[in-house]
């Protein structure tokens, strides 16, 4: 009986231990891909074993005492009070351990907070439940951004460059975390918090909002894409273009009309014109609680949508991008979403009924708490014909 219990205990412990192993773990904190994340990793490798040993000892001791001295009706043992030797030892030993850990931790904190070697600035804004990135006008490694770029979901940065993220939030507190590039930093309404990231090689790195921010917190994801200098220059050049109007008498042109009728209330497409020739300016401030919705000018240049929750690429095409070598990654990413790689299934489902795919406060009956404005995308009640047209139009937004 005793052996059986021990066996069961060992099996349960082994199962829990092995559950931590995974081959596909894009948010693994032990795989740094940049200087800042490497600094955190170095600190982890010093602190984790120390904390692990202390933790295991404490838990083992507690478990032993709980079982060994549990109430079985025995007489109370002799009560004693005070043991200077034990108390001094239990004070000095943790203090020494914490002092050593503290020295290295503070050194790391100050190094990570450095901003005087910034080479590029990107404004990062969180809202329920997606991230917006805007690139102010600046010169980055000789590449000039002449007019601000605005995108969402995927943060594109040049490799080997110290990028300063200036984070804030439009609604509640969020937290920005790309484990491969740096630690977490809260995005707080009304404050600008700074986070420096840098990627050594081209690649794509997954992240996740790490501050509970409402119903779809778990679906507030992001990806950082690092491109080599030439590829980054090509990306910048493309992002500064306005969207081109679709060809005459095509399904995409009909989709543009649906977009103007339905989507432009919240989503901006730079260069899009109304029937009278004036610029179509989105008014998310009138319809969305956070006052913003993703800019879709170059939707098909990114691989994800709906707060990086769903892929715009089919699984095989996505795999090609994620597993590309650093040398080939740039060209694989810059292809964007081609017609044969478009994940039409998820995009259509999203257009059909967005709240069914991603939980959001988008029920018209429950808008009283948010001044009649939506948090997230509502169900627009589009017909299948309109969805066909919209997919055709969105496919042109390269």
């Amino acid at each position: 009986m005793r052996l059986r219990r021990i066996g069961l205990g060992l099996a349960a412990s082994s199962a829990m231990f092995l559950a931590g192993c995974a081959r596909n773990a894009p948010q693994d904190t032990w795989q740094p891909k940049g200087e800042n994340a490497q600094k955190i990793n170095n600190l982890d490798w010093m602190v984790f074993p120390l904390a692990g040993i202390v933790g295991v000892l404490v838990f083992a001791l507690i478990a032993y005492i709980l079982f060994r001295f549990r109430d079985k009706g025995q007489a109370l043992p002799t009560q004693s009070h005070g043991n200077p030797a034990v108390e001094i030892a239990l004070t000095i030993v943790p203090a020494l351990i914490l002092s050593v850990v503290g020295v290295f931790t503070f050194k790391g904190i100050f190094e990570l907070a450095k901003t005087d070697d910034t080479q590029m600035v990107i404004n990062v804004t969180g809202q329920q439940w997606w991230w917006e990135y805007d690139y102010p006008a600046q010169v980055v490694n000789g590449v000039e951004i002449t007019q601000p770029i605005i995108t969402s979901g995927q943060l594109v940065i040049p490799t080997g460059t110290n990028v300063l993220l200036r984070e804030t939030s439009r609604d509640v507190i969020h937290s920005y975390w790309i484990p491969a590039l740096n630690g977490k930093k809260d995005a707080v309404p009304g404050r600008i918090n700074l986070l420096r990231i840098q990627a050594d090689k081209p690649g794509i790195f997954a992240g996740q909002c790490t501050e509970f921010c409402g119903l779809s917190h778990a679906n507030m994801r992001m990806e950082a894409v690092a491109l080599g200098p030439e590829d980054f220059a090509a990306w910048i050049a493309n992002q500064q273009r306005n969207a081109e109007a679709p060809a005459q008498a095509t399904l995409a042109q009909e989709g543009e009309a649906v977009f103007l009728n339905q989507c432009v209330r919240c989503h901006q497409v730079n260069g899009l014109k109304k029937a009278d020739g004036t610029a179509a300016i989105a008014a998310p401030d009138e319809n969305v609680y956070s006052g913003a919705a993703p800019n879709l000018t170059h939707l098909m240049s990114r691989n994800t949508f709906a707060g990086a929750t769903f892929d715009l690429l089919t699984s095989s095409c996505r795999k090609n991008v994620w597993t590309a070598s650093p040398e080939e990654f740039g060209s694989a990413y810059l292809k964007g979403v081609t017609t044969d790689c478009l994940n039409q299934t998820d995009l259509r489902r999203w257009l059909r009924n967005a709240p069914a795919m991603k939980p959001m406060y988008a029920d018209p009956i429950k808008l009283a708490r948010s001044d009649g404005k939506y948090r997230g995308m509502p169900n627009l009640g589009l017909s299948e014909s309109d969805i066909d047209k919209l997919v055709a139009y969105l496919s042109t937004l390269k």
Partner: protein
Amino acid sequence: MFTTGSKYCFGIAGLGSLGAVVYMVLVNPSDVGVLALLGIAIAMSLVGGVAQFTGDFDVDSPNDALTANAVAPANSMWPLVLAVGSVFLLVGMTTDPIIFILGIVIIIAAGVEWALQSWAERASSDSAFNRFVRERALTSLELPIFVGGGVAIIAVAFSRIMLAVSPQNGAILFIVFATAVLIVGFLVSLKSNMKKSTIAATCVLGAVVLLVSGGIAGFNGNREQLVSAAAEDHYSHKECEAAESKYFDKHSENAVSMKSGISATIRVKDGKLTAQLIGIDTPVQAVTVRRSNSTTILFRNLDDAQYRLVANLGTKKIADTGVEEEIVDCTQMTGKNQTQALILKISKPSASSGPYTLTVPGLEGQEIAVVVP
């Protein structure tokens, strides 16, 4: 059968389960609140089970009973109230802040009462003395709360009176009131044998007069001068001209500047206007302001002359008249080495109705571009 400690845990688990059922029926069966309540029930069942298994807190066990007081403790309702408070707290976390706050209040009140009751019951074997101990301890807690509440009510009543009468009459009233308090205090100290009932009656009378007057003043509202000033928007209407304004700049020297959460700092030094972004050392000529997002910009004047920072944010069409009106925002007049904050929230991109600029009246020909992507 159940130990005292485990009863508390099982109580919360039971109420949590019951709450989950009620929540499912009344609110939403698939809401996160149900999960939260069931989570509480499971967690507290686990803790209760451990407490039961290890005999923790079991004051009724034969061994611990040896050390317990000879006087059996009275039945207490406070564990149940505490459990109810815990459920309120956790339900409030997922539903309504008011329920959450109510939970905190119940937990604090029940916790204090339970702790003091338990402590007092073990003070001695004399139950009368124990009651005295309990009352003495509770009085030291209750008295400051009642006195604090009383002072707050008097302050509110007095403030209503002062807001209702004219400034001149207010000054006279204040002098009369202070003098009356001084005279009464002087008389009380002079006549040490004065009856307590006389002192109490005087205080009650004063309090009643104050409360009734405050109630009447509050019912009648603020004096005409304040009402008209509010109607004319003297306090929030911003006058952004180069000259100092009568109302808007009246207390500019008292303005509290925001030192954190700033996006950019605009400086005037030697007659030159420059901008600096947080995190970037070199000055810039354009500031990016995120669309629909409150953005704080600091204005720091390092020159002798007084200046204000003005944000020119395009135009808007007035719905009734169709007339285009300029959208302008500004800081108060800012003296040498003073700092003011300007909070911008712009919903339209600068490309649509821009260009947006930051200027300083008196420094003509200089501007910082405001880009809203």
